[in-house]
Structures are given as structure tokens and as C-alpha cells.
């Protein structure tokens, strides 16, 4: 039996990374990642790799109801993530932005905004417009970043027609207070998840790995919170350290630590779709993180690094590619809805091309590309 370490080493594009042999072996010992995997290329960001073609821009825009404004100013973000989004600071602007996006071919949007000091996004005035959008364009999918909610707010979100609700789950009080500058208990994150999952909404919580200044702290507690409420899926992302102020600097979490969280999530949440979302630090560490995500058995990866698709194929996983936001698409697939079931990668063709490609000369050069 070929070891996964050998398979890893045979993927040229992954050789820029360094991998923990024990962790790779543990992932293989878990029984292997055999389920289908879906690679998402949402257009929040222009994306191309050697393995996946660029998609038309604008299919899944990100829209902010506060423009670039956020009162929370968390240390890892400081509202920078909002800057490139389409601003829709009034209900009328939201209606116009959505209509223009649909004219350009949008299939759906990520709807978000900056928070108030209580980590709530104030959508109040927007609910009638969201309802109007869903009534006028039923096929237009809306994934909303809800932030923290009350039971009443969760009900209003559900009644507005939103398809998927997303919120970050934080498991450590120190992180809530120090990184988010927020005076609310961890229990409020769990309550919000509970209120959302009590509605008809498809709830897709996010856990930001390394949120405590690049260290792991509340990730396991956050996994326990998610396990208690069984949402539709869980998105894991990795903190991006670039926006932090110098006096509150973030480390880049080591990929092997992130990989351990992936494996723990897979073991703690069997059967729950696990997705690696768009946000993670770029460069070599991203290549390593993505490889661990495939081996740990995550079900989807957004904006995969070069070599990730080949690794999935070599591990025998069915591969599909989707232009949609992973929080929406995975649930559609699970529920048998078909607006975007993803395009299947022609594995036979992929293998033919890989086999034909000249490879490095050396001990690893003759490891075959396998499927199944």
C-alpha cells in the first residue's frame, strides 16, 4: 500500500511545503479520506490555478450593508475584509446592487456588514428588501453573515428568505475580549447558533483557526459548541495576520497545528460537511494547509492551492468544482437541490495528463498516479 507521504511527495506543486510525517500517517490511519470533495472558486476574489480555470467575475459578489464601516475593529481584521466588498448602506442601495449584480450574471451573494459594539450586524432596515429580492429572484441565493443574534433576530432572518446563515463561533473568553474587544460571554455565541438552528435556515458556522493572535486556544471548545447543535455544515478558516496592528501582532499558525484541528474536527463531527473557507494565510503555509485539508477528509475547499486537486485525485476522491460560495453549495448538494451541483472533474482525463507530464528524476518520480 502506498503511503500518503509518498503520494504527497509525488505531487510537484505541493513540494514547496513541508509536512509532518506523523500527522500525515495519522490522517491515513483514520481510514482515509474517501468521500467526494468539492473545490469552490467563488468570485469574492479573482482566482486561478494551474488546475482550475478562472471563473467569470461577479458570479458571487460580497455585499456589505455598512460599506467599510465596523465598530468592533477586531485585531485580526480592523474592517479591512469589508473594503473590497460592494457597499449597500441603504435598503435602496441593496436593491440596486443586487439588480446590477444579477444583470452581470450573479447567482447569489454573500451579504454581510460591519458589527456594532455587541458583535451584531444591524440588518433591521434591510429585511423587507431581502424579502423583496427573494420574492423577485427566488433562484438568487443569499448567504448572510449574521454575527450574534437574538431569537427574535434569527426569526426575522429566516422570514426574510435568506438561504444560509453564517457566524463565527469563538470558544475562548480571552479571545472574545482581547481580539474582538467584546464584552459578551462565549455562551452568547452558542446561544446564537442555537437560535439560528431552531429556524428553517441552513446554518453554517465558521471557526477561525488561530484567532487568538495566531495561537490555538478556543478551537476545541468551539468544535464542542458546534457538535451540540448540528448545523448544516462547518466552515473552517485560518486567521490572516496581515491587518493586525504592530502592538497586537498575529503569528501565522503553523500548518501542522491547523491540520490537527482539521483532523480533530473530522473525528469529532463525523458526517457533518466540513469545508475549508476562503480565508487563510497565503504562500507556502496555504499549500500545506490545503494538503492537510484533503488528507483530513474535509468535504470542500475554497480557492484551492495548486496541487490540491491532483492530491485529491491521487487519493481516490471524486472531485467536483463549483463557482459558488461553499456555505451555500455544499448544502444544495446534500439536499439534492441542483442550482449548482458543481462540475465533475474528468478524472480519467486528469490522470492521462498527469501521467504524460514530465516529472522530476529521482526516487519519487515513478510513483503512479492512481484513482480509486
Amino acid at each position: 500500500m502506498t503511503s500518503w507521504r509518498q503520494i504527497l511527495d509525488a505531487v510537484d506543486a505541493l513540494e514547496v511545503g513541508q509536512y509532518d510525517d506523523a500527522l500525515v500517517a495519522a490522517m491515513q490511519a483514520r481510514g482515509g479520506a474517501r468521500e467526494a470533495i468539492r473545490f469552490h472558486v467563488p468570485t469574492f476574489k479573482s482566482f486561478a490555478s494551474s488546475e482550475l480555470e478562472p471563473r467569470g467575475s461577479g458570479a458571487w459578489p460580497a455585499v456589505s450593508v455598512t460599506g467599510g464601516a465596523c465598530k468592533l475593529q477586531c485585531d485580526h481584521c480592523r474592517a479591512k475584509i469589508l473594503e473590497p466588498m460592494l457597499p449597500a448602506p441603504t435598503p435602496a442601495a441593496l436593491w440596486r446592487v443586487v439588480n446590477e449584480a444579477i444583470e452581470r450574471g450573479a447567482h447569489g451573494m454573500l451579504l454581510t456588514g460591519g458589527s456594532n459594539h455587541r458583535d451584531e450586524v444591524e440588518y433591521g432596515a434591510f429585511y423587507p428588501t431581502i424579502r423583496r429580492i427573494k420574492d423577485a429572484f427566488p433562484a438568487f441565493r443569499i448567504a448572510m453573515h449574521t454575527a450574534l443574534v437574538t431569537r427574535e433576530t434569527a426569526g426575522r432572518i429566516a422570514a426574510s428568505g435568506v438561504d444560509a446563515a453564517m457566524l463565527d463561533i469563538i470558544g475562548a473568553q480571552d479571545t472574545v475580549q482581547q481580539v474582538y474587544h467584546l464584552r459578551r460571554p462565549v455562551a452568547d455565541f452558542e446561544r446564537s447558533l442555537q437560535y439560528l438552528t431552531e429556524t428553517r435556515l441552513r446554518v453554517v458556522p465558521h471557526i477561525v483557526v488561530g484567532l487568538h493572535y495566531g495561537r490555538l486556544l478556543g478551537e476545541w471548545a468551539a468544535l464542542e459548541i458546534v457538535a451540540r447543535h448540528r448545523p448544516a455544515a462547518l466552515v473552517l478558516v485560518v486567521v490572516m495576520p496581515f491587518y493586525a496592528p504592530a502592538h497586537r501582532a498575529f503569528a501565522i499558525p503553523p500548518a501542522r497545528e491547523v491540520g490537527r484541528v482539521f483532523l480533530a474536527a473530522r473525528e469529532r463531527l463525523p458526517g457533518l460537511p466540513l469545508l475549508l473557507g476562503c480565508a487563510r494565510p497565503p504562500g507556502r503555509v496555504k499549500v500545506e494547509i490545503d494538503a492537510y485539508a484533503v488528507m483530513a477528509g474535509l468535504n470542500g475547499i475554497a480557492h484551492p492551492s495548486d496541487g490540491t486537486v491532483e492530491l485529491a485525485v491521487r487519493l481516490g476522491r471524486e472531485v467536483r468544482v463549483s463557482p459558488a460560495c461553499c456555505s451555500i453549495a455544499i448544502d444544495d448538494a446534500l439536499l439534492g437541490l441542483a442550482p449548482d451541483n458543481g462540475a465533475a472533474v474528468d478524472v480519467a482525463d486528469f490522470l492521462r495528463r498527469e501521467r504524460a507530464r514530465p516529472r522530476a528524476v529521482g526516487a519519487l518520480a515513478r510513483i503512479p498516479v492512481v484513482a480509486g
Partner: protein
Amino acid sequence: MAAVKNCNLPDDLYYNVENNVWARREADGTVTVGMTAYACALAGEIVAYTPKKVGRAVDLNKSLATVESGKWVGPVKAPVGGEVIAVNDALAGNAKGINADPYGAGWLIKVKPANWDADSASLVTGSGVRPAFEAKMQADGFAGCP
């Protein structure tokens, strides 16, 4: 030096216009490769640079590095095929150096070309640079370099 929409495009370099990359043949026959100022402007501030390893073969028009900015991630495609003989270690912790000096300190990779004469025949240089990029920028709807 050609300048199109405020983007510097030295006309002594060889360009694959579609892929927005340049190549410069050095005196020893090796080829230095980088992104154009136009490509840098499209990408915005670059935050990561992940090149292929030294010693690896790179095929014509295939990825020689992955580059990522806040709004873009993608492969930089090789204007010539050959063997990677050097990568720019100075960019490892300072990828925005690509934006700062795309034709100098921000070079991406050095290649020992497999067949310079054949590969360079399809590249644009000299007086062809300006019209080729004018046409591309027009087609892309590009407003101009900052």
C-alpha cells in the same frame, strides 16, 4: 521605455502580453522572468510569492510561481520553458517588493531556457510592445497604473 496608461513597459524586454509577464535574456544565456507593471497594478499589493523549486522543469505557459494579493490569486505563467535555476528569496517575506520594482528587485525566477530561440519568437519586444499592451488594456477596460 514604453509607457502605456502610466504603466512602464521597458521595450528591451520580451513579453507574453496575454499572460502579462516579461523575460530578459542575460549575458550568460539564462532568462530572468517577472510580472509586468500592468499585472502588478491589476493585482494590487502582493502579499505572497510561492515559486517553483530550483532544479524543477517549467513548461512554456505553465505556472512558475503562485502570487497572491488581497483581491487576486493565480499562477504566473512562464514565457519560456526550461529549468528553474534561481528564485528570488528576497521576496519571501516581502512580496510587495514585486509591486515596488517589477523589472528589477521584484524579479520572480531565473530559468535556463530549453529553447530560447523558439520560445522567444512568440514574445513581443521593441516597437511591438506599446501597441500590443494598448490593445490588451483596451480589451481589459483597464483604467491605468497608479
